[in-house]
């Protein structure tokens, strides 16, 4: 379980995240939603130790992240940011093999390669595994990065806007894979997502942030309704139930 206790972060005088306390359940998909500048990505980066927090505590499975060795954390929790510009030229297979670094320190054993092969197969990248990243489409590249995270074999996987710049088909593909990873492999996934309909259709819990604070957290039913969404986004959003999925209509 990931426990976030009274965490704050300031940039200059502005509180980006203020006194946030949440608990994230194991084996579920938790989505962070909220308007731009709500502090979703910052919170995600703090949980994954990419940036430091000003105050508060983050505990993963009983271990405070500031007191745990970075390499041990890398076997527990992984993060994928929204922009993944890599300055070196890598093939998919090479990229995915980097996911084994916490275990192998660069010297991959047979077992490590087995994980790499499995991750590539899981993301259906076998045919193109020797292609270079810059030869891929956005969807393929995103799958390659997720394969790397899979090879890292962590219980917790954090994704910062994994659907950024993807078309509908690839977005659905990615979300289905994430759902499968939770249901079949027992992973715990936390995502920052802008499209509330994807959050509504694929996640188990939703945490809504606004101005650095948690406005509301709960199940889909508790969050995806007109009054709550009004509170989060300051606009009236109609909610319809289609095939048991709650769909928000916010285009007009």
């Amino acid at each position, binding site marked *: 379980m990931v426990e976030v206790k009274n965490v704050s972060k300031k940039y200059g005088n502005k509180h980006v995240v203020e006194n946030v306390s949440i608990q994230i359940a194991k084996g579920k998909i938790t989505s962070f939603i909220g308007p731009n500048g709500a502090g979703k990505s910052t919170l995600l980066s703090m949980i994954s130790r*990419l940036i430091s927090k000003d105050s508060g505590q983050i505990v993963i499975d009983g271990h405070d992240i500031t007191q745990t060795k*970075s390499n041990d954390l890398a076997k527990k929790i992984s*993060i*994928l*940011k929204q922009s*993944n510009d890599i300055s070196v030229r*890598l093939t998919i297979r090479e990229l995915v093999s*980097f996911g084994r670094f916490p275990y192998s320190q*660069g*010297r991959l054993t047979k077992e490590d390669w087995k994980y790499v092969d499995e991750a590539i197969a899981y993301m259906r990248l076998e045919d193109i595994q020797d292609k270079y990243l810059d030869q891929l489409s956005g969807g393929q590249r995103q799958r390659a990065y997720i394969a790397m995270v899979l090879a890292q074999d962590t219980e917790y996987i954090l994704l910062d806007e994994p659907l950024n710049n993807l078309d509908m088909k690839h977005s659905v593909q990615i979300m289905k894979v994430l759902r499968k990873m939770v249901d079949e492999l027992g992973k715990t996934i936390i995502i920052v997502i802008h499209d509330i309909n994807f959050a509504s259709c694929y996640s188990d819990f939703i945490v809504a942030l606004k101005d650095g604070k948690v406005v509301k957290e709960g199940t889909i039913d508790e969050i995806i309704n007109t009054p709550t969404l009004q509170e989060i986004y300051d606009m009236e959003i109609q909610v319809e139930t289609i095939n048991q999925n709650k769909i928000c209509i916010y285009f007009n």
Partner: protein
Amino acid sequence: MKAKFTVLIVLAIVLILAFLFVDAGGNWDYIIPRRLKKILAIVLTGGAIAYSTMVFQTITNNRILTPSILGLDSLYMFIQTLVIFFFGSTNLTMANKNINFLISVGLMVVFSAILYKLLFKREGQNIYFLLLIGLIFGTLFQSMSSFMEVLIDPNEFLTIQDRMFASFNNVNSEILLISVIAMLILALYSARFAKYLDVLSLGKDHAVNLGLDYDYVVKRMLVVVAILVSIATALVGPITFLGLLVANVTQQMFKTYSHKVLLSGSILISIVALIGGQLVVERVFTFSTTISVIINFIGGVYFIYLLLKENKSW
């Protein structure tokens, strides 16, 4: 990959032999030891520059940066000028090259530590900010050096000028021994960092995600870079433009992310380029030019080519 290494190694050996024995003129006892010293200096400098540039580019995730952008070699010249300005060229610290070398290296390390604190520690560090600060520092050191140079005795100025231009014709041979020792220690020390460098080249976020203690590694690698730049600059003068050339040629040639390959490849290429260049300087131009002129010329042309090529790929 293996074939490329073999070619480079053979080429390096052939060039070294050519350098040693061509035009020796029978005066073997005199010529050979002198040339050996020169070769040693070239190998050390080449290795130091290739290694430091490669590592620096990996840390900054940028393929057109060299340590000289951060003003590291201007700082070295500044320290030299400072010592001469206050103590004169006959002073012990200036006269004893080894002490001078150790003091300079110490100050360079302190400077890079400060730079690290200033630039790498802040979150959301911006590469352009880093470049800008580095350029300002470099210019500051240069201006302060030339200010002091104007004030001092012209004879003292000659001592400084002697060191300002990279040249293998007057290698600072007194510090050869200490350089060799320093390089060996550094090589042993940084060997265990090679695997971290691979991960570092993915960028800070990926490196942290994969469990790298980013601050720990980058800090140590920057100190290594500072010492290597000091060694190269102390031996022959500012020549880090070579690093840009070598690092990019290595990238083109080996097309891999593995720093084991890249580092050893770049060291070989650097040695080949330097010895080849020095051969041309000595045998073709008969000392009418220095190697830094040739390197800056070829480096400049290559740099423009790089810019044009990168531009096209957009």
